[in-house]
């Protein structure tokens, strides 16, 4: 790149790393920001897992600082000293007994200082969910990989609207600030669950408002991104690159962008209405005659269930926003890893489209327990089960791709294989909860927690691990360390399953989610399961340090990468690693589909830029 642009002034640090309009830099910004949030949200969930395994015991190391106020920390030793003085001064037996009791209580309070209380517990679950969905998975899949890969895959210099693209990142950044600031306001961050069901979300403290602002901003960021992606994919493809020659990664990003464009504004509308309820006293989602702690609330006459409808109208498609791009990337990784063409390329595209389309008409399956006409429930049950069809088509096509392939068991492929297998488990457990009668039994239990973690962590996050490893050379010009990569994959895969598989069992056994153990006697028999899950989760959490270490270490010390280290066909591998500032010196001409592996002749693979007959086209 320095050869081509030698002699020109170089952009300063601010223009390169901060106010950059280059899609690759914006992708990297999204990636790193999401890593930060991955660790914040991971910390939140490990604290609550600790509490489930050790009810009443303070969270080690940071617990006293985070879950106890400064006032409580100061007061605890004073209380003990006071009680001891009282005990020493006590004259008769009765006074001594009372003083001893006081001392025991003070000691107990001091020992439990730094434990997560009930209010904090529900805040941890709410914020873990919100951050993981809106600040980790969506920004990594769509923000990072969408931005980085779409212009490369369609063979162009940059996004259609580069400034809008930069704005999309910085609005997202603003949302991050509000999300973090929520923890600092009085009463802590939002604690009505990530779904923010009314009426709890109407009554909570200012943390709820911060959450609403933050998510509205995330929504605007998503919409800006979606406008950009759709325009870029539809209007800026290189010559010869028809829609049917796009890699599945970009196809998936395309369909996801449609979902984002059409579903996110509904969420934005819902969030605006909820904010109006909280700030202006409107009555959209509040019931008439609402009482909170015996005080009549000034709201009256809205519809509580309406929030659930508008929320899930967005959030069910959002579930597919969380997994479709991962499906696309896993498809690419598997085709490259198995050295075979994707089995049923068009069927893959049609099934992604079908999943996205059906995604708009299934939302009320989240509300079987909220109460609805049984006939309506059946309709939503059937539409939900229909999604199993395109999902199964995808799974069989992945298996068909692997069938008789010469599979390379390198880190990207291993992660992609994990994606497929975990997605199958998550998909199968999903069918159980699609069935209304079964859902009524397992609703709000750990079975649900197991299900969506199998899809979002086992599915999407493993695909992300693979994809980061796969495209790292194109991002930074160096390879990530394969030994560390495999070790990280192995630990993550094993401990992921040890963490989440038992949740199916305790969920079916009736262990409710979002509750502290301490309050409920019937959860006591699950204690040993909870201890096991927590220990696995801690190992799983700490294994991720390997990945981040590998990421940053390889950025500077990794083996320098060649242009096409994976022998892949897609366009981005026809240019040097890392990708030059404007990607393609000359816009490439495309002759083939993206999956021409194992083609006849002396070449084992056929890049999209090379003609199939005769010698490779001159560059």
């Amino acid at each position, binding site marked *: 790149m320095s050869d081509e642009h030698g002699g020109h002034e170089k952009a300063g640090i601010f223009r390169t790393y901060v106010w950059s309009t280059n899609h690759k830099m914006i992708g990297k910004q999204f990636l790193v920001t999401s890593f930060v949030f991955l660790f914040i949200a991971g910390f939140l969930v490990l604290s609550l897992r600790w509490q489930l395994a050790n009810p009443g015991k303070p969270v080690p190391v940071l617990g006293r600082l985070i879950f106890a106020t400064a006032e409580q920390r100061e007061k605890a030793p004073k209380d003990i000293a006071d009680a001891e003085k009282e005990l020493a001064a006590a004259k008769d037996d009765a006074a001594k007994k009372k003083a001893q009791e006081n001392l025991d209580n003070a000691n107990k309070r001091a020992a439990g200082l730094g434990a997560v209380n009930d209010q904090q517990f529900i805040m941890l679950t709410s914020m873990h969910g919100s951050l993981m969905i809106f600040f980790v998975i969506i920004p990594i899949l769509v923000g990072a990989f969408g931005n980085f890969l779409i212009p490369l895959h369609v063979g*162009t210099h940059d996004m259609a*609207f580069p400034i809008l693209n930069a704005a999309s990142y910085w609005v997202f950044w603003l949302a991050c600030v509000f999300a973090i600031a929520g923890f600092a306001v009085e009463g802590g961050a939002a604690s009505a669950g990530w779904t923010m069901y009314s009426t709890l979300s109407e009554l909570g403290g200012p943390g709820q408002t911060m959450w609403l602002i933050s998510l509205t901003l995330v929504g605007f960021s998503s*919409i800006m991104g979606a406008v950009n992606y759709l325009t870029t994919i539809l209007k800026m493809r290189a010559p010869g690159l028809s829609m049917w020659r796009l890699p599945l990664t970009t196809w998936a990003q395309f369909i996801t962008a449609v979902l984002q*464009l*059409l579903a996110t504004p509904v969420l934005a*509308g819902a969030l605006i209405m909820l904010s109006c309820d909280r700030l202006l006293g409107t009555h*959209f989602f509040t019931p008439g005659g609402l009482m909170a702690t015996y005080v009549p609330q000034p709201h009256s006459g809205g*519809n509580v269930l309406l929030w659930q409808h508008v929320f899930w109208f967005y959030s069910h498609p959002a579930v597919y926003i969380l997994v479709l791009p991962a499906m696309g990337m896993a498809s690419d990784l598997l085709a490259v890893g198995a050295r075979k063409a994707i089995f049923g390329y068009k069927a893959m595209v049609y099934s992604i489209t079908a999943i996205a389309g059906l995604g708009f008409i299934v939302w009320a399956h989240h509300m079987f327990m909220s109460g609805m006409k049984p006939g309506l429930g059946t309709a939503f049950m059937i539409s939900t089960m229909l999604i199993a069809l395109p999902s199964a088509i995808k799974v069989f096509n992945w298996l068909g791709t692997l069938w008789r392939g010469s599979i390379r068991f390198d880190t990207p492929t291993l992660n992609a294989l994990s994606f497929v297998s975990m997605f199958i488990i998550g998909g199968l457990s999903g069918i159980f909860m699609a069935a209304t009668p079964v859902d009524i039994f397992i609703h709000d239990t750990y079975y649900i927690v197991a299900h969506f973690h199998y899809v979002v962590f086992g599915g999407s996050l493993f695909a992300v691990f693979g994809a980061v490893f796969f495209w790292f050379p194109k991002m930074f010009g160096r390879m990530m360390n394969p030994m560390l990569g495999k070790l990280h994959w192995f630990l993550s895969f094993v401990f992921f399953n040890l963490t989440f598989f038992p949740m199916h069992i305790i969920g079916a056994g009736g262990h409710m989610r979002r509750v502290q153990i301490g309050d409920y006697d019937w959860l006591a028999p699950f204690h040993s399961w909870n201890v096991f899950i927590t220990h696995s989760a801690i190992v799983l959490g700490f294994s991720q340090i390997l990945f981040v270490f590998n990421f940053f270490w390889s950025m500077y010390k990794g083996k320098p990468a060649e242009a096409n280290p994976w022998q892949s066909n897609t366009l981005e591998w026809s240019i040097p690693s890392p990708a030059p*500032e404007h990607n393609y010196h000359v816009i490439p001409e495309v002759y083939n589909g993206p999956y021409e592996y194992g083609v006849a002749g002396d070449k084992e693979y056929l890049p999209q830029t090379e003609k199939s007959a005769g010698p490779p086209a001159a560059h």
Partner: protein
Amino acid sequence: MSHADAAAAHGHDGGEDHAVTFERARFGMWLFIASEIMMFGAFIAVYIVLRMSMPQEVVDYSKEVLSHTFHLALINTFILIASSYTVVRGVNAMSKGNKGHCEDMLILTAALGLLFLVLKGVEYAAKFDHGIGPSHNVFFSCYFLMTGFHGLHVLIGVILLPWCAFYVEKFDAHHYAHVENLALYWHFVDVVWIFLFPIVYLL
């Protein structure tokens, strides 16, 4: 990245010309409008659901209150329809290279938008004078949300139109995507009102 670089990369190297960027910008605007339709769609859907379950006396009472300022809403409807006409005249003038006329028409459109906002303000003030705000009842929650958000869109248009008119001088005959996009946006804002007026004031 210097501007020369950017120009080399975006302008000539890939053979992208103004017609292409024009087409792209217009496509992006349509996508943006699609997402806006979904947002107003959410508001209108919520209004329909709440309206269906509203007690009849609440509806009757709210309609009675609204009827006092019905004439303002009616005048506003005609103002917006007129402004759609003026903005089309602006785009038409631009495509024929008549920049002066385009400027005039954009400014006139903005003035009509401003007039709409003033009348809307009078209408709101009449409500507030009687202590009727968004928290008055469910009907007025919806009323203020929908008309308020529409008003916000008009306001954005009223700010962007003169700003665009200011730059019209610099656009060449094939490079007026801003004017056309702004006109698209303005039509969208009008169409939203064409939906809001009957469902809020007439039905």
